[in-house]
């Protein structure tokens, strides 16, 4: 008897599911492959590739101004370098909303953005007479190169650096570090651009059409949405929560430039870039797909992105101080970003799965 009941439940379920999908099919076709191709292509060209090219450009500006600082160390040339660092950092943090492809698989992320800095070894490097050739610096541990050692040398441990403080060795090391950062960011840009064979623009754009990495368009969409949700998780539950819960400012990234909250904000802005298909040039974004089928989901995503950015804006102190003094603001921001993460993971992900093959 039980078996019969179970069978009838199965039958009823099947019939209901059947009727429901028929109704939906009469509205908009679920999968528009041509539109999906446009979205994947514009993500690759207008967002990912464009952002890495811009990162390399901003890093190149930093290198130029560090050369100038070396020739003429004044507080004006130093301020320019500090601005350049922040400008490059802004682009890098936005790019973290799509941490897949060469940046993840070629091990570039740790080499340009490792925290903490190995201060002991860094001081000993400066005290030594090792020649800071490009090859030598490239062989150094990740904790001795990339954004944060450069930040430390440009801003000082308490953000107090002045041009007159520089030793020759510090300037030599800064030059070598900026060259190394430029090499890596240029390599990253090169891996997305059509000039190189097996470039990642093609890997994503041609998903389901010969891509070695993504056998279907759906896999590429899942990768993109998972990365968007992933950075929200990383910001809310890693970068923000770890220093906050442990009340340990040593866990904070970008403390020397007091840039952490700006970093978090740029991470979320990166999510918006991906969603709208726009870094500088506007393109076909995921938002087009969402708007075609589900306006309230689009509204929910954009509202949550804005709410997250606004909540971060309410943290007015450097993060290392805010973890003690601005608990309410930090908790509100963590909550907002976690809500954004849930919308992306629990609603946008199934949505793109339904609307791609």
């Amino acid at each position: 008897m039980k078996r019969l009941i179970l069978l009838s439940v199965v039958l009823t379920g099947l019939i209901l599911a059947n009727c429901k999908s028929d109704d939906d099919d009469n509205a908009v076709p679920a999968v528009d492959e041509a539109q999906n191709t446009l979205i994947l292509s514009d993500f690759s060209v207008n967002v990912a590739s464009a952002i890495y090219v811009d990162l390399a450009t901003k890093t190149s500006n930093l290198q130029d101004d560090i050369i100038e600082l070396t020739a003429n160390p004044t507080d004006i040339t130093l301020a320019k370098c500090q601005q350049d660092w922040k400008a490059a950092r802004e682009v890098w943090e936005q790019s973290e909303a799509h941490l897949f492809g060469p940046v993840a698989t070629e091990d570039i992320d740790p080499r340009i953005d490792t925290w903490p800095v190995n201060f002991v070894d860094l001081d000993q490097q400066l005290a030594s007479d090792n020649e800071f050739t490009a090859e030598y610096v490239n062989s150094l541990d990740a904790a001795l190169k990339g954004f944060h050692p450069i930040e430390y040398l440009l801003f000082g441990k308490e953000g107090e650096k002045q041009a007159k403080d520089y030793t020759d060795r510090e300037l030599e090391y800064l030059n070598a570090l900026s060259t190394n950062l430029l090499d890596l960011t240029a390599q990253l840009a090169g891996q997305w651009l059509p000039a190189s064979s097996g470039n990642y623009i093609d890997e994503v754009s041609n998903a389901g059409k010969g891509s070695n990495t993504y056998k279907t368009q759906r896999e590429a969409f899942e990768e993109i949405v998972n990365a968007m949700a992933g950075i929200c998780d990383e910001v809310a539950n890693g970068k923000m929560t770890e220093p906050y819960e442990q009340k340990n400012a040593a866990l904070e990234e970008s403390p020397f430039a007091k840039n952490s909250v700006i970093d978090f904000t740029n991470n979320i802005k990166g999510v918006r870039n991906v969603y709208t298909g726009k870094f500088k040039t506007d393109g076909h974004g995921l938002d087009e797909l969402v708007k075609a089928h589900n306006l309230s989901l689009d509204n929910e995503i954009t509202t949550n992105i804005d709410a997250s950015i606004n909540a971060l804006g309410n943290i007015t102190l450097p993060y290392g101080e805010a973890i003690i003094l601005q608990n309410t603001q930090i908790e509100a921001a963590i909550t907002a970003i976690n809500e954004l993460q849930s919308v992306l993971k629990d609603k946008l992900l199934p949505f793109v799965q339904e609307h791609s093959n």
Partner: protein
Amino acid sequence: MKERTIIRIAAVAAIAIVVYSCIEPDERPETPADEWLAGGSQTIFDKGVSAFSSQFPSLLGNRGSVHGVGDAAFGATFVSAPAPLNPGLGPIFNNVSCSSCHVNDGRGKPPLGREQNTSLLVRLSVSGTGAHDGPKPAPGFGLQLQQRSIFGVRPEASFHIEYSDFVVEMNDGTKYTMQRPNYIIEDPYIPFPAGLMISPRIAPPVFGLGLLEAVEDSDILSRADEADADGDGISGKPNHVWDEMKQQAVIGRFGWKANNPNILQQSAAAYNEDMGITNFIFRNESSFGQSQGVANDAYDVTDSLLQSVAFYIRTLAVPARRNANDDQVVRGKMMFHEAGCASCHTPRLKTKTNVSFPEISGQTIYPYTDMLLHDMGEDLADNRPDFEASGSEWRTSPLWGIGLTRVVNGHNNFLHDGRARSLMEAILWHGGEAAKARDNVKAMPEADRDVLLKFLESL
């Protein structure tokens, strides 16, 4: 869907329910649908760069938080002491964090050129046996080469690989160019001892290990056939290794030669040997007793953090199969079985009942390993015994997730030192007990080889 189809499905479902209700789960014939859930109830459906990085889906509340703490520690970069954050690196080491070798919780790749910052490490020993019948440490170097160091300390030596090409021909004349590695270990900080044995090993993926840890010893032993009593040419033998916590020899499960007993000890050893991070299981620095050694002070990682990292690894979920019902994949699976691959790459295992850890209790999983050692022939041999594993024996590597290597790690390098640049190259390197299966693949027509690869990529 037409109504008639629904009736048919319902009829099939009814028959299935009637049939399966009378059969014990273990004896129930396998259906293609089963295999989608490679990790049983702890399967996830991410197919992208994070496919190996998800926590168990049913891990809730505080257990999820512990996983998160372990996750952060797994990614933490160690630096020279003293430091406000993560001090204690080295003085000699292979890498600076767990995730710098196990990138995205996945598979490492062989070093490029002469880079020393790599996800491959080299095990060392000299002939004879050391403590607890393990390998005998190389005097002055220990059991592992540390080719990197903090400032002011010399690395033990440098290591790189040079390759020479050779061609393997399939029975139908198709040629594969393979690369044979030649290991070069040079520039030692003191002269190498005579008779130094080396074994390069790539960082393996770390997901699903909690489930493999939960397979009953007796289940593993039931597949062992050391003397090949059944005469199928496949032996299969367990390794027995020293368990530091239990202070006794137990069955080895992890590592390329099943040379580690469990996840906790494996993690503690990796902290110690790979990063120079001391802990309550391995209290001495890896350089202890060497001329560059340092005094041991406090443990670099706390007991609770080490336990959290082990818990993190134990609770990394398994990605689901893709396209398991695709016609070509189904045919490829037949080829896999017909060629004899499944004799060692056992598709299905079951985990034991464990009421205190429900997530890993009583799961049917599809790791494609028997967890046993097999003689893989001269070409793959490292000629360095490791506990009971001979110089030519290796543990059957799990194949689950292997098709996601490219998207997670950006390469398709396989085997213990990453020498194979594709799945077919990996197959062609198989020798010893696996020679017959390999030859069966070489004898396949191209269409059959293609579907075999499609099947492997679906894992």
